[in-house]
């Protein structure tokens, strides 16, 4: 109904009481130009709605579906590592975003499904079960699920818990970098020296864009593995998630 009302108003505005043939060509041109501007404004408003709302609807739906696929494959209880369809779920209580499915690769097609991806390029990510290395992840800050929207809420000591079929990996945040350029590839080095560490270890790195709603800079959070827990029959969560 709203759309129709707008339409009617526009019609009135562009059709003055004067009989049509007598209208000056310039008046017609101005009227058409004005209507085009109004149209452009409406289209931009719709684009904002698309970016910040509709892509989230689509991505959350797709992420749920893909997450369910992984969960149902894990349903037979803990067992050998199963990384098909996704390597596991990232739980970050401080971000209040539930669980985030993690898959291979950080290309837009993957990330637009409302999941997080681990880097394969320019520096391949280590995986949590590797003896050492940096488990590097990227996800959207806004739109497309916005899984890392609350990355700025993370403080040192906050838990980042990664769940695979058979193990809980509990990381603790030890450093955040609120702003860096996208060229700063060093933040995802196997030993991310920019975060202050010097020795090889088992690190995790979250990257997303900042400030919110734009991609001008990148926001980085580093964590280090604190301990692992075997998944039991009931998938009892580690204390950090209770």
């Amino acid at each position, binding site marked *: *109904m709203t*759309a*129709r009302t707008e*339409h*009617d108003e*526009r*019609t009135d505005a*562009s*059709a003055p009481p004067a009989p049509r043939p007598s209208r000056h060509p310039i008046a017609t041109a101005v*009227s*058409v130009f004005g*209507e*085009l501007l109004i149209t452009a404004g409406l*289209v931009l408003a*719709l*684009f904002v709605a*698309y*970016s910040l709302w*509709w*892509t989230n609807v689509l991505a959350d739906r797709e992420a749920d579906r893909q997450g369910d696929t992984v969960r149902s494959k894990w349903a037979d209880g803990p067992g050998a590592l199963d990384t098909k369809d996704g390597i596991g779920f990232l739980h970050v209580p401080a971000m209040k975003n539930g669980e985030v499915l993690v898959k291979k690769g*950080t*290309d*837009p097609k993957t*990330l*637009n499904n409302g999941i997080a991806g681990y*880097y394969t*390029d*320019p520096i391949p990510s280590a995986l949590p079960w590797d003896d050492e290395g940096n488990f590097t992840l*990227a*996800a*959207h*800050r*806004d*739109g*497309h699920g916005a899984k*890392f929207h609350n990355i700025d809420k993370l403080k040192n000591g906050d838990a980042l818990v990664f769940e695979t079929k058979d193990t809980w990996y509990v990381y603790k945040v030890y450093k955040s970098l609120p702003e*860096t350029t*996208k*060229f*700063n*590839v060093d*933040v*995802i080095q196997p030993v991310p020296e920019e975060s202050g560490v010097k020795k090889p270890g088992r690190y995790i790195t979250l*990257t*997303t*864009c900042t400030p919110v*709603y*734009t*991609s*001008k800079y*990148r926001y*980085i959070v580093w964590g280090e593995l604190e301990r692992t827990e075997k998944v039991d029959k009931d998938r009892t969560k580690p204390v950090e998630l209770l």
Partner: protein
Amino acid sequence: MYGWIWRHLPGNAWVRGVIALVLVLAVVYALFQYVFPWAEPLLPFGEVTVDGASAGGAGAGQ
């Protein structure tokens, strides 16, 4: 422009209103389904990775 469309729609005001509404919805659908998904990667709002590469329509980075 919109006045021209309105005058060329058939039927009385009610019928025209319904047709206009359908047209508006069709346009919104086309935007959400085709135009915006095409335009979004060309705009620098969704890049979340560090890659050192230039944006160049790469969308969320590669």
